[in-house]
């Protein structure tokens, strides 16, 4: 998901801005060598930066092109197998979006969805990481838990809706339950994976330095699993959004999923697209936030040569 990462890099200077250190006139092999190296390193860094700027530029252009094609397709009522006759144009969607920005209820929809995500995702993180660590470390826990994971994991969030409504006391709790399930499995599976790939030699090293089992777990297994856990957290965030939407479409009176479904019932086509784009935006933003939050714990990985 490099699109999220690309956003936090500021646009860079043009590659021409490299400062080339002037070489001394006399032949001084020892002095000129490091300056040569520095120059090479400078150029390399500049090349990397200009490549990032290039990616951002290409990404932006590609998005603009997509919107333009969408605009043209709706303008000329494109209808060849795929039908754009009833699809709202980007301008109509933008109009509808700006209109909603003035309505307090629009923000209620968004805030209610965010609240559900926070509760469901928070519980999924706590439980998912705990279960993942236990399964990854203990053969007994693995034998007991893995069958459930294998059976429940392929069931899509939508399929849970009837049972969730029967099981939970309120609509709110059933929506949160469905959202929670969506986030739970990617987090569990990635945590297990992370724990399993802890290099055995590091565990041995810690043991010979005097670590007990708990210390091995805290100083070796957990940090070794962190990169994979972070991946699970990011994937889990994405999945929790589309599980939330499944829950909100069926029940509830607020939430961005409800907003989208309601627009469909009322044949308000621009609002459907507004709802979809808001979901996309919130999903991207929250996944990006997860990456920012987990990044400090993974700093050592970026420094590897």
């Amino acid at each position, binding site marked *: 998901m490099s699109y999220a990462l690309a956003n936090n890099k500021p646009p860079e200077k043009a590659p021409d801005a490299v400062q080339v250190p002037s070489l001394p006139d006399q032949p001084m092999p020892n002095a000129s060598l490091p300056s040569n190296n520095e120059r090479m390193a400078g150029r390399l860094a500049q090349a990397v930066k200009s490549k990032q700027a290039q990616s951002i530029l290409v990404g932006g252009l590609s998005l603009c092109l997509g919107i333009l094609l969408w605009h043209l397709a709706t303008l000329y009522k494109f209808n060849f197998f795929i039908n754009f006759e009833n699809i709202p144009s980007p301008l109509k969607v933008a109009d509808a979006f700006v209109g909603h920005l003035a309505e307090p209820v629009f923000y209620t929809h968004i805030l209610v969805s965010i609240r559900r995500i926070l509760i469901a995702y928070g519980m999924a993180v706590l439980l998912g990481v705990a279960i993942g660590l236990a399964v990854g470390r203990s053969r007994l826990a693995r034998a007991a838990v893995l069958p459930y994971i294998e059976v429940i994991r392929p069931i899509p969030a939508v399929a849970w809706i009837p049972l969730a409504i029967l099981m939970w006391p309120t609509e709110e709790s059933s929506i949160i339950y469905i959202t929670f399930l969506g986030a739970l499995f990617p987090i569990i599976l990635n945590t297990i994976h992370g724990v399993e790939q802890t*290099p055995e*030699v*590091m565990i*041995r*090293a*810690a*043991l*010979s*330095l*005097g*670590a007990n089992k708990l*210390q091995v777990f805290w*100083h*070796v297994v957990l*940090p*070794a699993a*962190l990169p994979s856990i972070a991946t699970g957290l990011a994937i889990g965030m994405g999945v929790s959004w589309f599980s939330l939407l499944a829950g909100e479409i069926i029940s509830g009176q607020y939430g961005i999923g409800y907003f989208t479904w309601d627009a469909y019932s009322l044949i308000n086509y621009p609002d459907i697209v507004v709802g979809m784009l808001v979901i996309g935006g919130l999903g991207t933003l929250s996944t990006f936030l997860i990456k920012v939050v987990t990044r400090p714990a993974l700093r*050592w*990985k970026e*420094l*590897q*040569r």
Partner: protein
Amino acid sequence: MNTSVISIQHNLMQKHRQDSKERGHVSIESVGISFGEGTNRSIAVRETSLTIKPGEFVCILGPSGCGKSTLLNSVAGYVTPTTGRVLVDNEAVTGPGPDRGMVFQQYSLLPWKTVLENIAFGPRLAGHSAAECHSIARTFLAMIGLSKMEKRYPGELSGGMQQRVGIARALANYPSVLLMDEPFGALDAQTRLMMQESLLDIWSEFGTTVLFVTHDVDEAIFLADRILIMSASPGTVIADLQVELERPRQSEMATSEAFVALKRTCLQYIRAESMKAFELRECNA
């Protein structure tokens, strides 16, 4: 840094220097190691007995797959002998512990800890205060000549530097024995030579018993006081050779008569064992 912290570090080193003449006695008593059950049972080490004196530098030399690492692992405590026992300073080995420092062939530093934190890890587990741990770690960082690298992460260091940090980390617990399992095997030839010299420097400064596993004859002769040659699987010690080269060792000694003569002896043993292992494999195939 306050003076009490420095004096704790100083005292630890003083105490180590005084004790190192009595500490580090290793006794392997008819140790046999086999893996698996029934028909899958394979013998890695045949009954082996030997003793190592405190402060001795001993190399275990043998062809690959002869069980020399398994024997070392039984001293480290990762492997429990099927028969016999290992004693270090008259205490039976029952598992890995900080009295036996271990250096591995693979990079085993914790990549999420800085160089300083890696070396301070052992003292920290032993319950020293943060300031004491850093003081101890800095002493050993200076000993391996990497003081400038204390804030770096292992991933930023070269292979040779990582192994030096690995040695410092093992020594920071003031172990009575340093166990080294082909520690320079993954390094290029040039780096390996420098690491060998550097290891001897560290060893002469920080006296301790060293048990060093290698398949490189030159390395064994250059480093050791004593070379134990192991036979092909199942492994056991078939020769116990004293290295009569003066210390400090110089790289030029590799062409001296004594060195070459000893090398010839070692190679003869190893060639005979490799042939046996080769024929054994051919017969089984």
